[in-house]
């Protein structure tokens, strides 16, 4: 199975898992929206994001979510940049939940793959595990609309000898989320 298909299949399965977990749960809140990532010194990678919280999961104190983003919707859109596709699941804690401005901490875990477009590069690392702590701020724009700005640190960035060279350590992240349920 092609790696690109595998990444997106993982994403669909995660959504189905969340949907099944959510059935019959009236306390569930689901947010969905767009995510924009700028790796400092490298590409823009954009995509979609969704998160949920429920009284059944850590008593609603923790958000669980997923991000799917790609340079094909960023720097590689209509350009010769390398397509990079990434998938992450995350756990997130927001503070001052009732206030407009919420500091947040988050831990992302995932997988990214680059497509160099030539078999000559098969010996180079083409995939990378993502482990990234994230710190930021959320802002309630309206009752069901949230904006988030955060900085995340990819623990496994490439150093030319090991790891995918397309993963830079510092990444600036913006999310715009709409409350879809709850």
């Amino acid at each position: 199975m092609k790696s690109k298909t595998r990444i997106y299949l993982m994403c669909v399965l995660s959504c189905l898992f969340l949907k099944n977990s959510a059935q019959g749960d009236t306390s569930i809140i689901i947010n969905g929206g767009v995510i924009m990532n700028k790796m400092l010194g490298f590409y823009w990678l954009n995509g979609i994001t969704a998160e949920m919280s429920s009284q059944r999961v850590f008593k609603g104190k923790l958000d669980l979510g997923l991000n799917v983003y790609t340079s094909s919707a960023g720097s590689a859109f209509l350009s010769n940049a390398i397509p990079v596709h990434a998938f992450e699941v995350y756990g997130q804690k927001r503070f001052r939940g009732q206030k407009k401005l919420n500091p947040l901490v988050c831990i992302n875990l995932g997988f990214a793959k680059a497509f160099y477009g030539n078999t000559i590069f098969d010996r180079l690392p083409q995939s990378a595990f993502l482990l990234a702590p994230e710190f930021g701020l959320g802002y309630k724009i309206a009752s069901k609309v949230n904006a988030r700005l955060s900085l995340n640190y990819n623990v496994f960035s490439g150093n030319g000898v090991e790891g995918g060279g397309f993963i830079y350590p510092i990444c600036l992240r913006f999310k715009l989320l709409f409350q879809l349920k709850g």
Partner: protein
Amino acid sequence: MRSVLIGLFLLMMCSCKREKLPPIDDNVDLDGNRIQDSSLINPSGFLLSVAIPNPSSSYLNKKVVITAHGFSATNFEWQEFTSWAKAKPDLILSRVLLGGHGRDYIDFQKATWQDWQQPIIDEYNKLMSMGYTNISLIGSSTGCALILEMLSEHRINTTALRNVFLIDPIIVPSNKILPLAPVIGGWAIEYVTTDLTTAENGYWYKYRPHEALKQLDKLTRRVRKQMEKGIELPSGIALTVFKSEKDDAADPISAALISKGIKGSVVNIIQSDIHVFTRLKGRSAFTIDDIKRQTDAFQMIYDQL
């Protein structure tokens, strides 16, 4: 209380005395004011345009290769290729010293990437105006980024250009902290110290000022964006990349960016973990296989001229 603590912290930051100048040893380090690249004292031993100001027609028919070394290096980086090429009567090398290089720390600190690039353009233009018609460019590491930038911005008339060879080009640095140089340079760091072997001392800058790192960051970002847009090579010019598959200075992904950005370019991935695998002299250790890879690359380059 909190504001007092913040104030104390800021005061502490301001009072921290950072050394602006590194501990340069003038007797040993290229960064000092006693040692400089030999091409500054004896340009005719390096630059073809100076060595033979009035070339005969037999000279003009020869294959000319202009070499461009890497960041913080000197012409020493191409010394082995020069020695190898002496056995080829139809081949002449012209070794260019990048601007701001081979001099001293202050000169390196002041120079921009445009200054680094200018001597390559000048030598090419001089040789072309003298009548040479078979000129090739070969770069290592940052020298490659400078050559790519030249081609992308049409800074030279390519009528006499036949080949471009890139040895371990840097577009994506292996050190992914380099993009932070403009942010932390000047207050958190003044310079970065590099470990050199005894044999390398005097041929490379040991101390890399944050200003020079910022210039390197600017150049690599610029070339990356040029690759994203794409460069169309004029017909008749071949571009060949040689890239070590493990490289602690220029991330191997750099070769993939060139392959995507320049249609028709040829990439050779070399099973080496040496940055600029064509330079072995002065290294603390290398193997027989490394020597073979070096001479194979020289031969491939020569065969293509």
